[in-house]
Structure formats: C-alpha cells, structure tokens
C-alpha cells in the first residue's frame, strides 16, 4: 500500500466515524433535549480533523521516485470526482430548503457554514474513495 492509499484510508475512516458519531449524538440528544440543543452533536464532526494528520503520520517514501505519471493521473481524476461531487452537494444544499420550506420561507444564517463544511467533508471523502478505487482497496495493483 503506498502513501496516498494510507492517507486516503485514514481520511475515509475518520470522516465516516465523524459522520456516524455526530448522527448518533444528534439522534440521542434530539430524543433527550429537543432540536436546537441536539445540534451540539455536530461537535463530533471534529473527529474528521484527525484525518488531516495523515501526511504527518505517513512519512514520504525514501525511494528515488515517489510519484510517477500514473499517480498524477489517479490524483487528477480523484480531484475531478471530488470537484463534481462537492458542487453537487452545494447545489442540493441550496435547492433543498427552497423546495422543502417553500419560496417565501427564511432560514437562519447559521446553516450557511454548515453547507460549506459539508461540501469540504465531501471533497476529502470523495477524493479519498476515488484514490482507493483507482489503486484498488488493498496492496494489489499498487
């Protein structure tokens, strides 16, 4: 498994864990204390931040050539997939309140940073998944 795959794995695990934990926390808090306070469960999204430590944890390979044309192409394709998906997430996040609440409704501005955060998490997640799909999920096809 090369360095990109290891970093991608770390990101996939931490982001998945963060989303699962925060969803569970919001669900539990919603039952216990009701809606505005239940959003405190979003704090678990911070777990995804540990994924950012990947480049520090997994040191660069000591081989003379660490990145070839194929690696660049894989990274480029993954970035494109992440770009497309994040734009889709932003589009859905902007259109959904309009259709669900109606055109004359209003929302709190506190939802806007959440749209940005959601799109950012999607970029990292999709980029990592696309890298893992292209390399193969395990050691083979490295």
């Amino acid at each position, binding site marked *: 498994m090369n360095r990109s795959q290891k970093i991608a794995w770390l990101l996939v695990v931490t982001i998945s864990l963060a989303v699962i934990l925060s969803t569970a926390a919001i669900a539990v808090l919603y039952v216990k204390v009701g809606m505005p306070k239940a959003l405190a469960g979003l704090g678990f999204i911070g777990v995804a931040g540990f994924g950012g430590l990947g480049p520090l944890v997994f040191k660069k390979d000591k081989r003379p050539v660490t990145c070839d044309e194929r690696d660049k192409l894989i990274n480029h394709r993954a970035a494109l997939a992440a770009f497309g998906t994040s734009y889709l997430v932003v589009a859905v996040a902007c259109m959904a309140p309009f259709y669900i609440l109606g*055109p*004359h*409704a209003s*929302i709190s*501005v506190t939802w*806007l*940073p959440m749209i*940005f955060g959601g799109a950012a998490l999607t970029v990292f997640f999709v980029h990592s998944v696309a890298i893992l799909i292209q390399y193969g999920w395990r050691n083979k096809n490295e």
Partner: protein
Amino acid sequence: MNKTRKGAMAVMVISILLLVFSMTIPLAWLYKVPVLKILPLVFLVLSYIAMGLSIIFFRKKQSPSEPDFDERDRIIKRKAILASYITLWILVFLGCSIPFMITDQCGIMPVSLLPIALFIMFVIVMLVYSLPILMQYGRGE
C-alpha cells in the same frame, strides 16, 4: 480555432450573457422603468440564441483533418478546471461566511436567495473555466 477553444469561447459568451441577465433582474425589480423591466427577458433570449449558435459554431471544423483533441488541449483543460475549482471554493466560502458575519451569526435570510446564489456561482465558475483556456491558447499563438 480548435474544438476546445471554440467550446471555451461559447461558454464565455453564454456565461457573460447569463451573468448580465442575473444582474438585470434586481435592477428591473428595484427600478420601475419599463426599459429595465424588459432587459432580463432580452438577455435571457440572447443567451438562448447564443446557445443555439454555439452548437453550429462548435460542429463546424476548420478542416476535415483537424484532430478533436490532443495532449496540449488536455493540459490546457486541466489547468482551466483547476482554476474553476479554486474559484468555486472561494465563492462558496465567501457566500457562506459573508452573510454569517454581516448578520452577527443570528440573522435570517430568505431561502429564495440560495438558488440565485447557486446560479451566479455556476455562471462565474463557467466564466473562469473558459478564460484560462482562451488565455493559454492566445499565449501559445
């Protein structure tokens, strides 16, 4: 002019027309001048005409031997996608943080602004995608 350049030219023209169209809507809404009221419709029709013309423009080849796509086109497109990618993130960040800061984190906003913001973002991203392509081909010739 090759296919990539033609495509970028068409995208640029349509993006500018759509951007002007989106800017004329608040003008027509705020000022009750009859001429300003027609402007959004004019620019919308113009953008549809541009879309139709671009299909004809796009299909017409300079010569039968003209290749559809080569390595240089791929590199130029890659750089343009990167530029539009960065622009999208800057716009999403600004669009999400400015209302949050202006209203001191406790304001409300109409949901009808969200699709408008999305549309303007999309048009700007398309414009930014086409400009580096035209600039890079211009520099090479």
